[in-house]
């Protein structure tokens, strides 16, 4: 199913959805490999505040303020690219969506959260 796609318009800043349909971050940047030896390809998706450094002035400022760790998701983990990027595995297995996991511990403390 080879299909042409523009990395900036079609992949960057798109929503990541894990195998269970859970939203788990955005494509904050893409890591390239093989640029020097003429066979370039996308090696991984970069997710997290420190990936914003390459995203303009506001991005650098936000990256410094948010200080979040960055998660690297190998491109092989991507099952499909539509309006959103569908991943092959669960967010927890790819160390994604940890912000939601941390916040859940607070929210669960309030009765009726389930």
């Amino acid at each position: 199913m080879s299909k042409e796609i523009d990395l900036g318009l079609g992949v960057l800043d798109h929503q990541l959805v894990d195998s269970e349909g859970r939203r788990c971050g955005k494509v904050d940047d893409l890591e390239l490999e093989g640029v020097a030896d003429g066979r370039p390809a996308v090696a991984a998706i970069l997710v997290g505040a420190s990936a914003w450094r390459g995203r303009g002035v506001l991005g650098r400022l936000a990256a410094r303020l948010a200080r979040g760790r960055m998660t690297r998701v190998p491109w092989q983990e991507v099952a499909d690219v539509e309006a959103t990027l569908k991943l092959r595995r669960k967010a927890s297995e790819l160390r994604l969506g940890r912000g939601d996991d941390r916040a859940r511990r607070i929210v669960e403390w309030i009765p009726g959260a389930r």
Partner: protein
Amino acid sequence: MRVTDLLGVPVRTESGESLGHVHDIRGELGARSLRVTGLVVGRLGLLERLGLGAPRTPLRVRTRDVLPWSQVVRADRCGVVVRSQAKGD
């Protein structure tokens, strides 16, 4: 290197002629790969820049207006250099 390192950088031929800037990077989506096949370069209309490009596909412009990666001699944060007769057509 990251995609955002290439987006927006100037593109010149080996003889120094400017071809504009990198607006986007054209890729080909395989089963488990996303290979880079070319660069969307040059003077794009406002609509293409905002994503109203080639109909029916998430592409900024038709493939024939894209600079094949094979023409690229060097690409880094400062700019992209391509072979001299490498105009997109």
